[in-house]
């Protein structure tokens, strides 16, 4: 358990405790079931956006948790903000608070004006183009799989101009909603047509200067960073539930935990959780730093790989009980199966890591690994 007391800064600890309290208070089983589209949920469409919960989170200032104090935020350390996001993942929070926390901080880092409204991140995919316009810029493109795209107040996306130069764009008013899909966990993933949307010049910005060129952070990489941290939370939930079940459930006259085969499965799952956490910890420590994109690629790849193994073991341990919507295990596993493919699957990020490593050659690999961990490569 990462007790809030472990956070070095007392303010960080207070914020994490506050999140824990708000989630415990508001995330009732009925609300979660309604948002997940679980059996028995009747008012699903109306409950997809739990407005009261968002209001409670926003009133605590959490959307701007990672924005520096000088710019109106709480100014949490990125490693603490990552813990906040893991708690959201652990609790299966059906709101884009994680996207908003990271997106607002990215936007603030570009010099853009931030607001406490819900913000979503547009995954990579087809390029959105921008062209100069009398009132700023005009957009051309359709975006898909946008988390809560139809409900949030603003989107952040990657766009390119006519010269192919990348920019970050904030759209204060979403484009035309074309279609609403849901991921495997029932979270809305929307398609929006942005063609003809006009944004003021101040909302088209260069990536922050964390690293030049190919290493610059994009909305896609920040989304991958968010999903990696959320996955750590869901992995913890899945492993914790499996450990508890193995100790409580009796079969053949003794607890499941006493069977060696069960012990080995849980040890294997624990190894994946530990490795995924180590990779996500590194990415958390690299926020705002030239290593961000590579460390995030590694975290998304390693957490995504762990997700499949740990979800499979979690279900195997829980038996048929865990295969029902009556048991809460699915809140973690359906999200793991969704989040590992959002903002680039593990295979996509592995491919990018592999291309970078091969381009550098064998001798460059070790210095790269040392630099990633914060040493002088």
């Amino acid at each position, binding site marked *: 358990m990462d007790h809030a007391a472990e956070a070095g800064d007392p303010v960080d600890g207070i914020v994490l405790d506050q999140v824990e309290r708000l989630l415990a208070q508001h995330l009732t089983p009925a609300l979660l079931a309604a948002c997940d589209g679980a059996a028995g949920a009747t008012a699903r469409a109306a409950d997809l956006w739990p407005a009261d919960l968002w209001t409670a989170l926003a009133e605590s200032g959490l959307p701007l948790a990672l924005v520096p104090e000088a710019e109106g935020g709480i100014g949490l350390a990125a490693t603490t903000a990552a813990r906040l996001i893991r708690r959201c993942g652990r609790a299966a929070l059906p709101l884009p608070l994680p996207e908003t926390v990271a997106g607002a901080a990215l936007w603030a880092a570009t010099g853009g004006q931030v607001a406490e409204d819900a913000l979503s991140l547009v995954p990579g995919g087809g390029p959105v183009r921008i062209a100069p316009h009398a009132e700023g810029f005009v957009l051309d493109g359709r975006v898909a799989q946008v988390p809560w795209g139809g409900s949030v107040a603003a989107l952040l996306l990657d766009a390119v101009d006519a010269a192919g130069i990348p920019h970050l764009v904030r759209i204060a008013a979403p484009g035309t909603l074309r279609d609403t899909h849901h991921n495997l966990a029932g979270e809305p993933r929307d398609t929006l047509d942005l063609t003809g949307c006009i944004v003021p010049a101040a909302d088209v910005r260069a990536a922050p200067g964390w690293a030049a060129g190919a290493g610059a952070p994009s909305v896609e990489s920040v989304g991958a960073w968010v999903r990696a941290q959320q996955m750590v939370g869901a992995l913890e939930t899945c492993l914790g539930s499996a*450990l508890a079940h193995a100790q409580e459930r009796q079969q053949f006259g003794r607890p499941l935990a006493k069977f060696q085969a069960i012990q080995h499965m849980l040890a294997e799952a624990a190894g994946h959780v530990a490795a995924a*956490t180590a990779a996500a910890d*590194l990415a958390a420590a690299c926020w705002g730093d030239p290593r961000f994109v590579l460390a995030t690629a590694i975290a998304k790849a390693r957490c995504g790989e762990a997700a499949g193994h740990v979800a499979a073991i979690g279900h195997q341990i829980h038996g048929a009980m865990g295969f029902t919507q009556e048991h809460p295990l699915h809140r973690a596993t359906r999200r793991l199966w969704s989040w590992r493919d959002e903002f680039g699957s593990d295979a996509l990020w592995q491919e990018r*890591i592999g291309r970078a490593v091969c381009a550098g050659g064998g001798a460059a690999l070790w210095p790269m690994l040392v630099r990633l*961990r914060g040493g002088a490569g």
Partner: protein
Amino acid sequence: MHSFRFSAEPLPPEAEAARASVRAFLDAERAAGHFVPHRTSWTTFDAAFSRRAGAAGLIGLTLPEAYGGHGRSGLVRFVVTEEMLAAGAPCGAHWIADRQSGPQIHRHGTEAAKRAILPRICRGECAFGIGMSEPNSGSDLAAVRTRAVRDGDGWVINGSKIWTTNAHQVDYLLALVRTGEPGPDRHGGLTQFIVDMAAPGVTVRPILDLSGHHEFNEVFFTDYRVADAMRVGAEGAGWGLVTEELAFERSGPDRFLSDYRLLVELVDRIGPEPDRFQAVETGRMVAQLTALLGMSASVARLLDQGVVPGVEAALVKDVGNGFERAVPEIARRLVPVEPSLTAQGDAFREALGGVTLRAPSFTLRGGTREVLRGVIARGLGLR
């Protein structure tokens, strides 16, 4: 909710500062042709290399200066260790003494043993072997049967040890032997002694490994006499000592960097423009390795703070062994070659051949994977 005592703090500046000096030493060694990275590993016994490493101040880093050491932190040693592994340096003549036997003797040995042995270890002139396993004991150390019996101011040992790496070349074994009854938990009655391999009563039988290489041995003690001053730790305290020693043995980067040079040769063999399959699998291995490097550095930090992180150390070994055993299997799928130990001039084929034949040992040495998973399960509260 279970979580582990890992963290992502960078290594301290004094540890990172040591990196430049160990790299300078290794660059000079390679330039002089003293070792060929893909053919050597941390178990390769090269007494001359270890003497030069000792002279360069790279052995016994954590031992006090009074015993010839350098009084540095465990994290400085960690950096030296990982640089040696990444370079494929032949560290077998000092590895075990530096990693575990020297520190054990320093913590639990007699003053006479410390004065006689530690300065030689630090100079790279004194090699150790691990005398834990016995025929029929495997990973079950409580089954140790080799017995020491008191005789005047010393002990007489009879029995045998097996799988002793480089026993035919080392100066000493740190041997775990039975001096009393096991007791109800089977952990009692075990004691560690420093065994002088040159003394009468010790004989060595070679055991060739899959590649035909002579690294393992069986060691026989026939009325072997050892002075009480060579006892390490209290009589009957052996179980606690080897448990502590294993945390050092299991968590180091030697548990996942054994075939690092194969990964380097693979990347070079694929070249700068990988196909998608090659890129994805290479990226997957690098992501796994990065996580392991973070975990291992975290455990090193805990050990340096005096914590014995048994579960985290076991996790590093279990996840790490899984990684190092997978690397040759992935490599052969990415580059269509036939592995060989004698493909002169083809570093990738040689590295693949050597690692393929060594890989089965990765999940055995230092405790089998299945035993390790039992240790992890206990740490998770399942046993």
